[in-house]
């Protein structure tokens, strides 16, 4: 696969509006996004449309990307940190067909990055937008399924339930048991679900120079973190949030700072490789060890 496919923006395929959605829908989504950016971490309901990919497979992220993407953008799509997983391939093809814009696997070259379940290891900059695919936008849903109720809890800044969950974890396991989708407090106000990224990635959200947008298509909510916003993982004073090292290095590039996938290779040996394929490729090409 080419690192960067430059179609010179050939435009959308026949019969499609640019990025599939009609202009009114895009405007509706942008208005919702503006509201979301103005109230960091607050879930804004929006009229999610049926998309040609199934609910639960990224329709929220796709609608957000479709609403903001322009002819001069360069798009990167990753799932589990990789550009080559089936979901990432499917979504990248969807945008290639409906926009004709340039796509890339290189984080630095992308202006819009749509992601499922990971934040890229390469620090993002202020010319970039990170669009997260979110399955369940409501951080309190496991404790309170009713939306009518959680709406009131957020409005009243009543997050007792969230703290109760953390207390229980510590009482039972001596650790917080939440290893992914670890709830965060945004700009000191709203508690937000960062989507099922590993808690390893949580610190990256804090004061990130890039704009972070979150889309939940099936649940019909979107939310946002403006650049350079405080994002703090929930914890107790005497049990602070900590990122645990996996204790291994990447077999391919030697990295000890990136999130690693555990893989059983053809010989039956357990090895560790960077989940972020672009990061790993980068390090290897710098070290002159690309295969």
């Amino acid at each position, binding site marked *: *696969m080419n690192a960067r496919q430059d179609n010179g923006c050939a435009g959308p395929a026949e019969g499609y509006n640019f990025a599939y959605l009609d202009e009114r829908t895009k405007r509706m989504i942008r208005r919702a996004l503006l509201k979301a950016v103005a109230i960091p971490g607050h879930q804004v309901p929006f009229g*999610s449309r*049926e998309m040609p990919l199934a609910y*639960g497979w990224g329709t929220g992220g796709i609608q957000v990307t479709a609403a903001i993407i322009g002819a001069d953008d360069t798009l990167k799509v990753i*799932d589990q940190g990789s550009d080559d997983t*089936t979901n990432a*391939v499917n979504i990248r093809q969807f945008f290639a067909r409906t926009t004709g814009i340039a796509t890339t696997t290189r984080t630095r070259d992308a202006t819009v990055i749509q992601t499922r379940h990971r934040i890229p290891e390469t620090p993002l900059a202020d010319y970039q937008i990170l669009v997260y695919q979110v*399955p369940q936008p409501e951080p309190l849903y496991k404790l309170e399924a009713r939306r009518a109720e959680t709406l009131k809890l957020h409005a009243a800044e009543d997050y007792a339930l969230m703290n109760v969950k953390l207390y229980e974890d510590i009482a039972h396991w001596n650790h917080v048991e939440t290893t992914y989708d670890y709830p965060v407090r945004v700009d000191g106000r709203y508690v937000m679900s960062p989507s099922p990224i590993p808690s390893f990635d949580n610190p990256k959200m804090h004061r990130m120079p890039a704009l972070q947008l979150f889309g939940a298509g099936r649940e019909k909510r979107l939310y946002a973190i403006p650049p350079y916003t405080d994002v703090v993982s929930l914890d107790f004073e005497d049990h602070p949030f900590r990122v645990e090292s996996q204790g291994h290095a990447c077999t391919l590039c030697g990295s000890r700072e990136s999130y690693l996938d555990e893989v059983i290779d053809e010989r039956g040996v357990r090895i560790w490789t960077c989940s972020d394929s672009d990061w790993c490729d980068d390090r290897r090409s710098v070290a002159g060890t690309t295969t």
Partner: protein
Amino acid sequence: MYIAVKGGERAIEASRALLAAARRGDTGVASLTVPQLREQLGLLVDRVMAEASLYDPDLAALAIKQACGDPIEAAFLLRAYRTTLPRFGYSMPIDTDAMQVRRRVSAIFKDLPGGQVLGPTFDYTQRLLDFGLMRGDEPAPTITPAVLDHAHPLPNALAELAAEGLVEPCVPRAGDPDPPDMTRDPPTYPLPRPGWLQMLARADEGWVLGMGYSTQRGYAYTHPFGGDIRFGSVAIEVLPDELDFPVEIGDIEVTECQMVNQFTGSAAVPPQFTRGYGLVFGHGERKAMAMSLVDRALRSPEFDEGDDSPAQRQEFVLPQGDSVEASGFVQHLKLPHYVTFESELQLIRKLRAEVAQRAAAMAFEERETPAVVAQELA
């Protein structure tokens, strides 16, 4: 040497080719045509139109063919198509009292104005497999086209009851506010009745059936009677801005069910029967009837009936009823989740290590008490 997995795109292409072959099946067998599906699998076409909230029998038949007969996949195709269609506006409310009725039954009267019109239904058949159909025998028609197409308006069975004040009146809410459009606006719970009726109308039939059935089995029993259940065609009229009279743009077939339910009264109002309502595209009596049971259960706050039962809870019944959403999210578990799983593995290994450590420490302590040591020395 470990080679990172590549070639996801090629694998996807191959999968698509396999699907196309599976859809076609044995090429020695004639390919189904869309008109065949439309004409001869009419009830499936109706269900797909209902759950896609798009009335177009030809497109529904095409979706069924493309989806290899899977009704939820077909509804999904049709809904995705619906998203791309331009919207000119809203029609006037359909008048089901003016319906050209092909079938109408009422369980609350032995006979009534207009009569019991049996129409085409499985209700009076015996469910015996007809092997003649397998051989390709088609029975000679015993019905003339004139009879086949015969339909006329019938007065609603509840009209008399309503005139006497025995059943609650059907009136718009104060101020006659515009209903929300649940295909455009996200739901905000608790929804007003027009909102939940829309969601039920396009909800998965199996789910609504189960919910309706639950009320009959005691989970919020509402004492239902089949007041007027009818199927036929209704005219669609729009009111263009330039004209001040409505213009008929066509007609569609719908099935409507008006249930008569548990009566109630208060200091202000003498006892009256209450209503439950169901409406679907095409011929779908099961769905319309189940919908009317659930509608009445969801009205429980109006009558101070509480919400102990699932069918009385909006947030239980409505979001989970959308077949396309439910199918997507349940099946999304097939997508890679190995990153989140890895973080779980990390934690569980750590916890197990701690348990093992504690057990070892305890065993060590137990070993080293003077009594134990003395015993071992002895």
